[in-house]
Structure formats: C-alpha cells, structure tokens
C-alpha cells in the first residue's frame, strides 16, 4: 500500500512498488491520455465496475496515509485547520484538504488529476459523506452516492442488497456512462470479478498463514502492505493476481523454512507474543510504532484493519455470475460496516483461531467508526476469550497525537503482563 517499504525487501514488495508507481504515473498522464478518474473510498470500493469503464481510481484515504508516512500530513492538517476545519475531526479529511490546497501532489511526486467523478461509497463511515461534500465544493464534476446500509441488525438482508443494486443500476452506472461516454458492459465487470476472486484466494491464504507457529507474516504491520493492491486500484487486474501469487510463494517459502515475519530490522526469530490487533495503525510514526512490537518479539497474527476493504477470510468472494449483487454484498460486508456484537465475535474468533496470547486495541482519535465502543469490545473479548486486552491511543495522520513514550509505556506494561500471567499458578511472578 505504500512506497515506504521495510528495509529488508521481498520480491513482492518490489513488485507492489512497481505497480503502484505505474498507477500513479498513469494518473499523472491522464490529462494527456484522456483517461478519466474516479475518486472513491477503500471500504465498499467498486474497482471492477470503475475499471470496466476504463476509469482510473484515486483513493484519498491512501493518499492521506501516504502523506502520513512521508511526514507531510502534519503540515496538511494544520493547513486545513487554518482554513476553518476543527481540530476535533478526522485527520484523513484534513490531510486530504491540505494536500489538495497544496497542489495535489501524490506520493510519487507526480500530480494527481482532478476527478471526473466523485464516487461516494458511503460504507461503514459517516465521515466519508462529509468528505465528499467538502470535495464537491472544490471540484466542478459529477458526483455519485452509493448508500450502503449498516448491518445494525448483525446481518445482510436481501432488502439491503436490493437497495444497493438499484442504486448501482439507476444512479452510479448512469453517472459512469455519462462521464466516460461508454455503455455499461456487464460481461466486462464479470470478467474482472473473476480475476478478483482469484487474487482473493491467494490473499486469504497469506493472511491465514499467520496461524502457523511461528507466524511467517505480521498480519498488521506487514498486513497493511499485503492489503495494498486488493483494497485499492488492483482488484480485477492481472497485476493484482501476479502480486498475490508472488506473495503467496514467498510466504510458503517462509513457512517451509520455519521463518518469522520480515521487519525493517530483519526477521523476527523468536516469536514471543502473538497478538490480534483491532484498529488502524498510526501512519506518522509507522516504523517507530512497529519497532515497539518487533523489539519485544511481538507478532501481530491477525488484525481487523486488514478487513476494512472486505472480510475475504470469512468466505466472501466476488462472484462473476451475479456481478452487481456481488458488489453489493462486498460493500455491505466490510469490517467497519459490522455492528459491535459482530466485531466482538470476529475478534474473539481470531484470538482462538490464531492462538493469540492477547489482543490489543489501537484507538485512533480520528475514527469514531472504529473507536466508539472499543472499550466495550475490550471487555467483552476479554470475558469471552480469557486472554488479556491491551489499549493504546494514537491517531491516523496527525503527528501531534502520537506520544511515543506513552504508547511504549503501555505496550511494555501490557506485554510484561502477558509474560507474568504465563507463570503457572503457585509460582511467584
């Protein structure tokens, strides 16, 4: 998902960097090539549909997190606050607005073209809607809304699916046709969905490899790289398939060799703690944050953040035989569209399936969709699984909300607690 790759690189990393670079380059060339762009969000993205119209997707969240990793987000956020945005609200939004005002230069240093379509997939996050309303004021372009109902009742109903399919048919597709001058081609979408499903198999295999001991991957810090292509512009593409095949073979090789995950400081050779992590990472101090884990030989074996773009590991696959319905079900199933009891169930299952020693919540200030209720999740998962929960706080891309000392203090305490609790009853600590 990013350019800033770990120091020890795998071939898949290089591949990811290459395809991402090509994508940003294609975007920069769009004014010359005439390619049309659609701005859209990761959860509930309609990449296969967008690409079937030969449009290029732009994902403002990804731009924001890239800015965070490249230490530019602080300035962007402050710029937006100068323009009247509250310090209280989502920093992805402010980072994006700040970047836009600064000329919309993407992570590879190339210009990101203005949108021809703002495709608002309103999935799992209320702020998305505000975000595109704000962008609408900045661009003179078409805007399409796709309202994805929340799984308030803990399930996907046929009414929800029908509602989304109708919106796709009557609202989203006509907008895509209008912007591109092309007609909707259902077969073209189906073909891409078939490619997606193929990559999804390999992606799930990679995620679930963490069930091995030692885990060959870090399912959170490493995971954010693995989700890159499939959560963004590369679903339904051959490049996406190639990437996940390469990644899968690497993981297989690590399992065969009994190796632990790759980190910027080399391999974890002595897996000491297996953690499930809930919540997005901090991007402004991503490496420093990760280091706090691998220095203690703590490996994140599963995470919820790697499910914001779909719960493929729970069985969902894009289905070429029912293209629009399949896209609808995909949108509905993204992690932040689950209700709290579903999230508790999922995390508890991960703790058991991945034989975790604990689960840790990184609560980010920006994201109420994730954060509101996390303290209840903490208690419920502890009660159900019996493993201890940990709680740390940071933010997505606002460097002012990352207190390294505070986080390290909590994390160390937490890991030492897990260690201490391993002592058999009767022994002294």
């Amino acid at each position, binding site marked *: 998902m990013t350019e800033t790759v770990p120091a020890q690189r795998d071939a898949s990393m290089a591949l990811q960097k290459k395809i991402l670079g090509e994508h940003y380059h294609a975007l920069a060339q769009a004014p010359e090539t005439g390619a049309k762009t659609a701005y859209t969000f990761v959860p509930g993205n309609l990449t296969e549909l967008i690409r079937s119209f030969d449009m290029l997707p732009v994902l403002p969240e990804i731009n924001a997190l890239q800015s965070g990793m490249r230490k530019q987000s602080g300035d962007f956020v402050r710029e937006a606050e100068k323009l009247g945005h509250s310090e209280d609200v989502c920093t992805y939004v402010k980072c994006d607005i700040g970047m836009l005002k600064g000329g919309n230069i993407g992570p590879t240093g190339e210009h990101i073209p203005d949108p021809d379509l703002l495709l608002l997939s309103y999935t799992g996050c209320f702020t998305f809607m505000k975000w595109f309303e704000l962008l609408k004021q900045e661009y003179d372009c078409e805007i399409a809304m796709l309202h994805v109902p929340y799984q308030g009742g803990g399930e996907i109903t046929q009414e929800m699916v029908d509602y989304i399919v109708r919106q796709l048919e009557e609202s989203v597709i006509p907008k895509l046709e209008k912007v591109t001058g092309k007609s909707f081609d259902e077969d073209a979408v189906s073909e891409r969905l078939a490619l997606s499903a193929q990559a999804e198999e390999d992606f799930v295999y990679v995620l679930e490899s963490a069930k091995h001991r030692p885990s060959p991957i870090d399912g959170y810090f490493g995971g954010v790289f693995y989700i890159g292509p499939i959560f963004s512009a590369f679903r339904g593409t051959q490049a996406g398939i190639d990437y996940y095949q390469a990644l899968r073979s690497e993981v297989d090789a690590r399992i065969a060799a009994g190796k632990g995950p790759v980190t910027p400081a080399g391999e974890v050779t002595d897996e000491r703690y297996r953690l499930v992590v809930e919540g997005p990472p901090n991007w402004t101090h991503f490496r420093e944050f990760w280091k706090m884990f691998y220095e203690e030989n703590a490996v994140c074996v599963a995470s919820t953040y790697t499910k914001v773009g779909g719960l493929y590991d729970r069985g969902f696959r894009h289905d070429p035989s029912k293209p629009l319905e399949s896209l609808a079900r995909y949108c509905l199933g993204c992690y932040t569209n689950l209700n709290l009891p579903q999230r508790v169930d999922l995390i508890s299952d991960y703790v058991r399936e991945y034989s975790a020693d604990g689960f840790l919540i990184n609560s980010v200030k920006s994201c109420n969709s994730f954060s509101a209720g996390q*303290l209840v999740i*903490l*208690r419920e998962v*502890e009660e159900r699984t019996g493993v*201890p*929960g940990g*709680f740390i*706080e940071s933010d997505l891309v606002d460097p002012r*909300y990352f*207190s390294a*000392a*505070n986080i*390290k*203090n*909590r994390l*160390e*305490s*937490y890991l*030492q*607690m897990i260690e*201490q*609790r391993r*002592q058999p*009853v009767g*022994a*002294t*600590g």
Partner: protein
Amino acid sequence: MNGLDCWVGIDLGSTTTKAVILDSEGAILGRGITNSRSNYDVACAVARAEAFVDARFALARRTLEADAELAPRTELLLPVIAASFAEAKHGAALDALRAELLVAARNDFYKSWQPALDRVLGEIVDEMEVRAPALFVPGAERKSDFFRDLASSSFMQLSEEAADPGTMPQDVLIGMFDKAIIKVENQELEVSFEEHVGQALDRLLEAAGLEAGERARAAELMEYAVGMPLQERAHVGTGYGRARLPFPKASIRSEILCHGLGAHATFPSTRTVLDIGGQDTKAIQVDERGIVTGFQMNDRCAAGCGRYLGYIADEMNLGVHELGPMAMKSTRKVKINSTCTVFAGAELRDRLNLGQQREDILAGLHRAIMLRAMSLLARSGGVHDDFTFTGGVARNPAAVRALRELVTENYGERKINISAASIYTGALGAAIFARRAEDADESTEEAAA
C-alpha cells in the same frame, strides 16, 4: 565483618524518584526519595544514596534494639542522629548554593547590579544558614523534605526583604536562585554518615542525655552499623522515566507490574490498585499472587493526575500539600465540570468571582479528579476488595475522602488501604522483582550444578 546482602528497586517518576532496599528476608531496609530533575541519572543516584543512608539508620536501630543496655535509649538516640544528619546535608547544600549563586552573578548580564549583588546574595545565604538549625530540631515540622522546596521558600522571603525596586529588584535575585538551584540539584553532595554520627553523639553527651559509658557503647555500636558492608546483589528500575535509567533491559520492569506487586506485598489481600502520580493515573487489577490481570492508564490528558493539582495550586498561590487540608474544610458542595487543565484556571477564577468559597471549590475539584480515576477503575474491571490507593495523591486527605465516597456510592463498602509509605509502592515492587529474579537465577544455577 560479614556483609549484608541487599536488593534495590528504583522508581523514576515524573515528579519524584524513589528507591527501596530489601534485605535477604525481603524486609524493607531503607527508602529514599528525591525530586526528579532534568538529569535522571542524578535523581536516581540521589534517591539510591538516600535509601542507603536510611538503611544505615535501620541497621543502627536494629543494632541498638538488640543491645540490652542501650535498647531503651533507642528512641532518644536515633531522632537526634537523624536530625543531625539532615541538618548537615542541608548545610552542605547551602554551601553549594552559595557557590552557585556567586557563579551565576558573574554573568555579564548582571554586571550593572554588581558589587551589591554579591553582597546581597551572600547576606541572604548567611541568613538561611542562621535559620537552618530550627528546621532540624527533632520533631520540627518541615513543609518538605526536599532542599529545593525549603531553600526556595526561605529565599523567596529573604529576597523580598532584601530587594529594592530601584537598586536591586527581586526578579534579579530570583533569577539567580533559579539558575543556581538547578546546578545544586544536579550535584551529588558527599555527606559522611560516620562523621555525623560522631557529631550527634557528642551533642547528646553535651546535652547530658547520655553518660560517657553509654556514649562509648553507642559509638561502638554505631561504628558496627556504619561499617557493615551493604552488598547490592541486584537492582530493578521502573517508573515513567525507566527507559532512561542506566540499567540493562533485563533490569527494567513496567511500573504497572511493580505497582501491582508492591501493593500486594504491602497488603496481601489487595485485588485492585489505584495509583495517582504526577504524570499519570493507573488502575490495576491483581490476583492473589500479586500478578497483574488487567490495567488501564489515563489518556493523553493530564486531568485526574497529580499534575492537575499542581496547576490548581499555582493558580491559587498555594503549595500542593496545602490543597487537601483546605478542601477538607469545605461545607458546601460545588460541582466542577471541567477537569481540563487548560480550563481549570479559568473556571476557578470564574467561581471565585461568583463569590464561591475557596474550600468548597477545592473540594469540588478533588471530586472531579477522583471521578476520572473512577472511570479508569471501571475500565480496568471495577473495584474489588481490598482496594489499595497509592501514589503521591494518596497523601492528600481530600482526595482520599472523595475516593471513599465515590467507591461506596458505586461499589458499596470496600476496604481501602492507604499506607504512609504508599509513594514507595512502585520502588518496592521493583526491589521484589530484583530479589526474585536473582533467586530464579540461583535456582537455575543450582539445578545446573
């Protein structure tokens, strides 16, 4: 002479640094505390030195109490020795202060005030020396045990008297003091225990409280206590600044674990621990072995920490230690909504302007702080018997009262433990870890052999 094995725990807090020394039985031999400063190494060394001095006193006590002849004299002897020692330490610090003040006054910036500046500073320190003994009469009340606090309060007063707006503004004098005191704090002052024991005994002899024979016997015993080698077998560091301790990683433990274990050691039936320190608040659940089963710490916000009380004290022009007793005089309930340190000052002034009583507002503030603690406790799993309250704020009576009320209202009757030495809880836990870790190593070695 056979030495005495001991184990050291150091808790490097944001406000104070504490050290605890355990003997081979696990009993506390000595405690030391000093204010944390910009230089953590010095704070650590000072606290440790204090604890070793305290350990000497403990040894002296043990020795005296074991002596058939002098045992009844213990309570007469020890306080005098302690006071004498404290006074000598204070004197050495004053010497250092005098030197540093004069160094500070050399700065070109203060040229225009010379030579009067040197003279006035000298006179102030002279007067501080004159007043010092009164602080160390056995049983005397001191506002603080820290040199910085004692020196600061008398320097403020004396500089105000000595100042003259035209010729020698007080600001200039205070500026000197602020520079000098930091230097003094960062020196490790050598004060010989042995020497001062001798002085103290002479003094006792003069005061005719002690016969010559007794003096000789006491001197002999003291020499034994003073001469006994204390062999530090292992140490463990903890606390907010633990990462800066010059210890290897294996000798560092999280403050959560240390607090849990320290509280367990002091009150074995403890299941819930609340620690409110300067920089953070911790709610900890422990099992019957003192092992931590869950914990929560406050977030970025300083509300609900000791630091918040510091802001309030500054705002009211009071010492932090005066807040609690004043709040205890409250007769009416005032509800404070803002525990935000940024707004606290404004709300305070607002309420004073409205004619509300200082005592009542303070009582409301204490309750507001404890409300934050209650929410952390709830997050960590509630309040279970026994409940132990530790940290600097546990010495504040109004905070304790508010906590009692809130615990009873929300959880029913709970046994609440507060020990006078609760500020040492983290350091105690660290010392126990040090002792256990070594035990574990030994047993491994034995097994190997």
